[in-house]
C-alpha cells in the first residue's frame, strides 16, 4: 500500500515541477555513458537468476552538490524546506543549510547535498530531464575501479570501501570530485555518501536480516542477497541494508544522490 501511494505522490510532485523551467540543467558531458552490461549482482534478479542486465545509460559523474540543489529549490520553491509537503520530506530535510534558500557556513557549495528525501531527489532529477539511477545501474557503475569495470574480487577495492565504514562521520563531508574517476569516468560512488536509487523499495531487506532461511521472505530479493554465498559482497550489501532502512520521506546526514538518464551517447 505504501508503495502504491508513493508512486501516486511522486506523480503529483513530478507534475508540479514539470511546469517550471529547468533550473540548473546539467550539460550532457557531466554524465558518463555506461553499458549495456550483464553482471553478477549481489541482489539476484530472481530465483535461480544471478545475472542482472542494464541497458545503456548515462550517470552523473559526481553526486549532486549543495549549490546545484540550491539552484533547484530557488527555481522550484515548493521544494524549499519551509514549504515542502511533510509527506515528501521529514523535518530534517536540508536542515544543514542556514536557511530555505541560503547555504550558510555549514554547507559548502561543492559538498554533496544530503538530508534530502527520495521524493526531493527524484524531483530534482526530473527537473533536469533525468531520473534517479536504478539499483542495478548504480551497482554496476560502482563495481568499477580506475582500470577495471569489475574490481569486486580485488581485496584492495573492498578495503577502500570498508575504510569509509570504519570512519565515524563526525567531521564535515568532503567536496565532491575528490576521489579518482573510475573506468567509466564516474567519481565518489564509494567513500563519500550513501545515494538514493529509484527502486530502493524493491531492495527490501527483511528488517531482521537473519530471516533468510524463511521461505516466506524469499519474495524479497534482499533475502537471497544476504545468504552465505554472497558474504564476500558484504561491502555492497551494507549499502543495500542502509537503503532498506529508509522511507521515501527520510533524510540523513550521509545520504545524497546523483541522476541518470536512458541511452547515453553510443559507444
Amino acid at each position: 500500500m505504501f508503495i502504491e501511494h508513493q508512486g501516486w505522490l511522486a506523480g503529483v510532485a513530478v507534475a508540479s515541477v514539470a511546469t517550471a523551467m529547468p533550473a540548473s540543467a546539467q550539460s550532457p558531458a557531466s554524465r558518463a555513458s555506461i553499458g549495456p552490461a550483464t553482471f553478477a549482482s549481489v541482489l539476484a534478479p530472481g530465483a535461480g537468476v544471478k545475472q542482472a542486465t542494464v541497458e545503456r545509460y548515462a550517470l552523473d559523474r559526481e553526486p549532486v552538490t549543495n549549490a546545484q540543489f540550491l539552484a533547484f529549490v530557488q527555481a522550484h520553491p515548493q521544494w524549499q524546506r519551509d514549504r515542502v509537503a511533510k509527506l515528501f520530506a521529514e523535518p530534517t530535510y536540508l536542515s544543514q543549510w542556514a536557511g530555505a534558500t541560503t547555504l550558510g557556513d555549514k554547507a559548502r557549495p561543492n559538498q554533496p547535498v544530503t538530508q534530502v528525501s527520495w521524493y526531493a531527489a527524484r524531483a530534482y532529477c526530473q527537473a533536469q530531464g533525468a531520473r534517479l539511477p536504478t539499483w542495478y545501474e548504480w551497482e554496476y557503475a560502482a563495481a568499477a575501479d580506475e582500470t577495471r569495470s569489475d574490481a569486486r574480487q580485488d581485496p584492495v577495492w573492498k578495503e577502500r570501501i570498508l575504510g569509509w565504514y570504519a570512519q565515524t562521520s563526525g567531521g564535515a563531508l568532503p567536496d565532491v570530485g575528490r576521489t579518482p574517476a573510475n573506468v567509466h569516468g564516474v567519481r565518489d560512488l564509494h567513500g563519500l555518501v550513501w545515494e538514493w536509487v529509484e527502486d530502493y523499495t524493491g531492495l527490501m531487506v527483511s528488517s531482521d536480516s537473519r530471516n533468510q532461511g524463511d521461505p516466506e521472505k524469499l519474495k524479497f530479493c534482499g533475502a537471497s542477497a544476504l545468504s552465505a554465498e554472497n558474504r564476500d559482497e558484504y561491502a555492497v550489501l551494507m549499502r543495500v541494508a542502509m537503503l532498506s532502512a529508509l522511507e521515501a520521506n527520510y533524510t540523513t546526514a550521509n545520504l545524497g544522490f546523483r541522476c541518470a538518464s536512458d541511452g547515453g551517447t553510443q559507444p
Partner: protein
Amino acid sequence: MTRITNAVAATFGVAAITALVSHAPGLAPMASAEAKPAAVALAPGDTGGSLKGDFGPPKGAPIKAVLTSPPHVPPAVNRNYPAKVIVELEVREVEKEISEGVKYTFWTFGGTVPGSFIRVRQGDTVEFHLRNHPSSKMPHNIDLHGVTGPGGGATSSFTAPGHESQFTFKALNQGLYVYHCATAPVGMHVANGMYGLILVEPPGGFPKVDHEFYVMQGDFYTTGKYREKGLQPFDMQKAIDENPTYVLFNGAEGALVGDNALKAKTGESVRMYIGNGGPNLVSSFHVIGEIFDKVWFEGGTRYQENVQTTLIPAGGSAIAEFHAEVPGSYVLVDHSLFRAFNKGALGILKIDGEENKLVYSGKEVDSVYLGDYAAEQGVVAAAASAAESGTLTLEQQVKAGEARYTGTCSVCHQANGAGMEGVFPPLAQSDYLMTDKKRSIAVVVNGLTGKVDVNGKTYDSVMPPMSQLTDDEIANILTYVRNSFGNKGEAVTAAEVAEVRKTTPRPAGAAH
C-alpha cells in the same frame, strides 16, 4: 509440550492461566480436567517460565528505566508489582581506543561497549525506544534475548540514522539476557561492539550484596596486528576465520585495570553480571584467586556452588557471586589463556582491607629450587659471563653447549650424536660437520633442506632454522658437538656465528 501449552493458551487466554497459576504457588492443582493441568503443572521449585511470568497489566505510573554504562549496574528494581518501564537507548558510532594508541570505530548502544545495562522486573511491560543518532552511517536494530517474539524485537526496531523506532514487550522470563544488533552483516555489527545485558529480575529480586558489577567479553578483528597503532578497520576475513586480534572485557584493553579496576573491601560480597557478546568465542570466565560461591550459570534461574571457571557462550551470560576474604588484586581472565595474556582479556578486581593470614598466609618461604635446570643454567651463565670478560675457555663452551644441546639437538641427533640412520644424519665423527666450520654454523642458523651426504650415506630431510638460539648459544653448541662423540675441533666463537648470520640469505618466513 509446546503444543499443549499453546492449546491451553488458546483456550483460556493468558489471563486465565495467570489466575490459575497465581492460586497455585509451587504446586499446580490437579483437579480440574478442563484446565489440562499437565500443561502448567510445576515441579516444586520450578518457576514455570514464561507461562508463569505474566503478572497482569502494568500498574502505577510508567517508570523511566535507569541505564548505566559498564562496569556499573542500575539499582535493584525493588518493586512488588508489574509496571510499564520506558527504555530509551541511543545507538552511536564512535571512535575510541581499543588499546593504547590503537583506535577503532565502535558501534554502540549508549556510547559504550558493552552497551547500557537495562534492569527490569519479570512481568514488566517494557516500552522500548531505539534511537539511531543522526551522525550514524549505518542503520541498526536490536534483538533482546529477553524478548518473546520474532527476532527478539529486531523486526520492529530497524532504524535509519537520525530516526527512532518503538516497540513494546512483556518480560515474561526472568534471567540475565544478552541484547545485540541484528542488522546485516550481523556478525560485523556485533564485532563492532553492539551488545549489552538486560536483567529481568525475579519477582522477589535478588538478595542484597555490597557490590554489583557489569562485565562483558567480546572478540575484535582488526586488519592490523595486536597493538598495531593508528585507526584499525574491521577485518571481515579474520572474523570469518574466528581469529580475533583482541579478546576484551568491556571493549578496551585496560577497561578494567589501573584506575578503572573494580574495587571492593574484605568482608564484602560481590555479584558480577557477566555477558559474552562474541561474536565468535565462548568464554571460560575465571577470577584468579577467587572461587565463585554461586554461579547462576547461563544467566538462568538455578545456581551452582563453589565454581572455579564458568563457561559463558557467545550470546549468553552468567551471574557470579563471591565473598571477599583476602586483600589483593584478583585478575579476571578468559582462562583460554592466550586470549588473556596475548589478546587483552584481562581485568582487575582490587580488594582492599586487612590481611587475613589464617585464610591466606602470603609467601612463607622463599628458597631456591632449581632442580636439574639449576645446573644447566649455571654452566650457561658461567660461559656467558666468561664470554663477556673475554676469558671463555673451550671447556666452558663445551659445558654450556652440552646443556643447550640436550633438548634442542638431541631430539633428532640423539644424546650420543649418532643420529638415526637414513633419517637424521650423525654428528659423531661426521665428515659433513667437521670439514666445514662455516657451513655447520649456517646449517644451525638457517636450517637445511634437501640431500646431503654424511659419512657416505645420503640423507634427504629437513632441519628447521634454530631461530630461537642466540649467537652465544650456537657457538657453544657447535663447540660442544665439535669436541664430543669422538670429534675433535677448534672452538666456534659467537663472532663467527654473527658473521654467518649476517652474510647468509634468510629463508622466507624465518625469524632472525
